[in-house]
């Protein structure tokens, strides 16, 4: 029998179904791995050892009783942005260092109801603001491919734990690329659904109009399996959309013959590392060989995506993070002299530098006299970006390109220059601005570091993206590669 940790979620599901092993054995094996490797990677903020073992026993009992849910007994990890009842939920911040959530996020609830066993909560950039995991109050996560490098962010802990085979799958969130960029930098599959596909209830808000929950997995098939459980309307989230949830796993099969793949010329311009570009072009050739046709498409407002994002996202975050005021929960300054002192010190001590930077930027762009020039203008550009995608999707089924301009960068490399850091999300942000489904799938290696192929589809094109990725994975084995130390 293969080592349990080296199997994909789909393989583990089959193994549990056949009775090759129990959820308890599987959970124990992975907890042992987390105990052995979790600290060196700093991938976890909380390991839920006792609860996981207990839930694994219950899952085994449910299966024995003929009540196995879709994810029965399958171990997963949650990004620490999702509220988990009676469990620490920190969002990577000192502000919530001691916050034990009194309730479960909708996706946490749905996955638990399907029988999943949660191993722990993963490290992340503070309040999901960052692209390197270095803004976490709990310290940066290390990239399993090279401990000196960043796993990307903000879902760095989720990506690293899957890449290092500490968990077969992880939940994650994506506001500007926070699922796809770390997936690309760690050789995992990162899937961000259409805005409104998955409930945001219980997911601590960064930028509400951009945030979307998704998954980081080892394969497209695994992503399809999880998405089927997470997706669907939630009456507790007014922005979730009541749209039928197809059988994503069944949708994986089918040829790519006739698939129209759009290529954006600017994606291959100066900003892209040569070797990364080469890997992506080779991946496109694989798709072509499978019957897809490549067409050039134009996204004329692409250059405005990053600046637009850095107006809209901070504006929303400046308001969303106002609730962290030291009054009801979270960090509270010692011995406040008066109300202003309570606010200033609780927030000053509780938030890190990047979060403060964005709160200040957001407060500025919403201020009287600046609102029209920044926030309102950004909303208009956002609409133009969205229109660009709509036009492009009249002619193509999917837009493909690099997920990131370069492979994983060294920890500390970009921390002094927020703009360079922000540009790491240049290819991914458009999908958030337009609310489109998008994913990153492993497609090559550059000097031993993974490269991701970025796929973006029109609204509700989850199936077609997953199928494209899955069929690509039938012809390639990039996604199966694992850092030597974690095999």
């Amino acid at each position, binding site marked *: 029998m293969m080592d349990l940790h080296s199997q994909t979620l789909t393989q583990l599901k089959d193994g549990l179904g056949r009775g090759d092993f129990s959820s308890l054995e599987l959970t124990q094996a992975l907890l042992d791995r987390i105990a052995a490797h979790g600290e060196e990677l700093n991938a976890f903020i909380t390991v839920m050892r006792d609860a996981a073992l207990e839930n694994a026993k219950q899952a085994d009992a449910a299966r024995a009783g003929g009540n196995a849910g879709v994810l029965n007994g399958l171990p997963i990890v949650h990004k620490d942005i999702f*509220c988990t009842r009676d469990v620490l939920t920190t969002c990577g911040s000192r502000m919530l260092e001691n916050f034990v959530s009194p*309730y479960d996020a909708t996706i946490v609830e749905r996955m638990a109801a399907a029988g999943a066993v949660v191993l722990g909560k993963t490290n992340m950039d503070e309040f999901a603001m960052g692209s390197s995991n270095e803004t976490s109050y709990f310290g940066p996560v290390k990239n399993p491919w090279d401990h000196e490098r960043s796993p990307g962010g903000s879902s760095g802990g989720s990506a690293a734990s899957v890449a290092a085979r500490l968990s077969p799958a992880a939940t994650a969130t994506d506001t500007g690329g926070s699922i796809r960029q770390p997936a690309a930098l760690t050789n995992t599959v990162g899937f961000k659904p259409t805005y409104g596909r998955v409930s945001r209830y219980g997911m*601590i*808000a960064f930028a509400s109009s951009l945030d979307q929950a998704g998954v980081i997995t080892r394969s497209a098939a695994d992503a399809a399996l999880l998405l089927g459980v997470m997706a669907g309307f939630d009456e507790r*989230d*007014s*922005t979730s959309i009541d749209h039928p949830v197809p059988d994503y796993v069944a949708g994986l099969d089918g040829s790519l013959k006739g698939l129209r793949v759009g290529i954006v010329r600017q994606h291959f311009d100066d900003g892209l590392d040569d070797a990364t570009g080469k890997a992506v072009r080779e991946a496109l050739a694989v798709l072509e060989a499978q019957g897809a046709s490549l067409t050039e498409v134009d996204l004329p407002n692409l250059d405005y995506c990053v600046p637009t994002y850095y107006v809209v996202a901070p*504006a929303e975050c400046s308001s969303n*993070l106002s*609730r962290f005021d030291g009054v009801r929960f979270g960090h509270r300054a010692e011995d406040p002299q008066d109300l202003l002192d309570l606010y200033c010190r609780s927030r000053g001590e509780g938030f890190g530098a990047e979060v403060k930077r964005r709160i200040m930027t957001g407060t500025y762009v919403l201020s009287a006299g600046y609102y029209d020039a920044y926030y309102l203008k950004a909303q208009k550009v956002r609409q133009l970006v969205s229109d660009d995608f709509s036009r492009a999707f009249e002619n193509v089924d999917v837009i493909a390109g690099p997920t990131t301009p370069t492979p994983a960068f060294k920890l500390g490399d970009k921390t002094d220059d927020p703009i360079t850091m922000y540009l790491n999300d240049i290819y991914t942000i458009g999908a958030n601005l337009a609310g489109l489904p998008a994913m990153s799938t492993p497609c090559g290696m550059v000097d031993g570091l993974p490269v991701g192929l970025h796929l973006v589809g029109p609204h509700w094109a989850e199936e077609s993206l997953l199928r494209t990725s899955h069929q690509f994975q039938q012809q390639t084995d990039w996604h199966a590669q694992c850092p030597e130390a974690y095999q």
Partner: protein
Amino acid sequence: MNAAWEVVIGLEIHNQLATESKIFSGASTAYGAEPNTQACLVDLGYPGVLPVLNEEVVRRAVKFGLAVNANVSPRSIFARKNYFYPDLPKGYQISQFELPIVEGGELTIKDADGNDKRIGITRAHLEEDAGKSIHEGHDRSTRIDLNRAGTPLLEIVSEPDLRSAKEAVDYLRKIHTIVRYLEISDGNMQEGSFRCDANVSVRPRGQEELGTRTELKNLNSFRFIEKAINFEIERQIELIEDGGTVVQETRLYDSDKDETRAMRSKEEANDYRYFPDPDLLPVEISADYIEAVRATLPELPAAKQQRFVDDYKLKSDDANILTSSRAVADYFEAAMDASDASPQVVANWIIGELSGALNKDGLDIDASRVSAEDLARLVNRIADNTISGKIAKEVFEAMWAGEGSADDVIESRGLRQITDSSAIEAAVDKVIADNPDQVAEYKGGKDKLMGYFVGKVMQETQGKANPGQVNKMLKDKLGS
């Protein structure tokens, strides 16, 4: 009031909509619960929670819009009003800013000369209420009660069309009556369900440009509103006449001292950084929905008053009093259904005896100890000459005290009017015989003594003689 100055007043009313649950959560809105027992995670602004709009709140706002002849916006937007305060859990209040649900309404009040005057309603928008900060009685600390956080409010903003404190109060009473007619709010001012801020300015009569305004807060009774506005008008006029200038600021009314005092100036005002709330979709209201709501509207106070005047021939003022609340109007109409008496007589009884008794016992008309039907039967007994109006008051008091119906009281107390002429004649004869001096004076031309004789006869009959018969018989006997 100073004839050289014109007063300009605009009102903002914060009206709690009496829905079962809050505007964005399922928590109860009931008043008076233990602090912080009616605040769920959404009201507390916990990390990760999201607001979901209560549809009943929208329906009530639409009702109000239709009742004041306003436009109900097919699309309105919830925005965030950002400011920090401990009783505002999220650090922002969800309100409506650029696109409110109701725009451009109106209603009619009476001006100083008693003529109809149209008052414009700029807008009415939905928002959530904040919690309460309790500063008193806790040393240096402040306590927070978030039960009220998330209670739905309809903020109703008038045009600056009001020209006196009296007009302002008239307008407020009209709005107050309408929201209770519509049953969208309990309008309870003591519990803060109906609160008002007043923007007050003065300008030299004839000047086009508005004077600098102050905003008066904390006005929670009609009486205080009138007093506060009048105080503020006098203050502003005196200030200007003494060579000063009015500063734009928020002023708090202190009802104990009957004065307003500065709370915060415009310079200290917050920049609220309004922007559309990304957690909520635009509120889209179809024409069909509006028509369906319109079909549920009750007869409104102005229409009902007019009908009472037209159909029942009531005096306009009386019709106004009877239609000041739906319950009173319903009581009147229920009484009319059971009554043979004239509508004005029934109205007089409600406005007079019944209102007096209700006030004395601090009861609403819904809790009246005398039902509309019983009151009607009492009035019927006057109309059919069973009792006199005077005796009827005694009967009413007995009914109020729980002695039964009008007929029960008349029987048990033996109050039936004497219409037997021989019995009346005996009393008349006795009075004439007992008062020879007065009879002589009367016959000598002192007509006014007739009242004295009638009184004496009524005394003889314990008030039960039919006054008309007594009068007639006395005149016959005394030969006038």
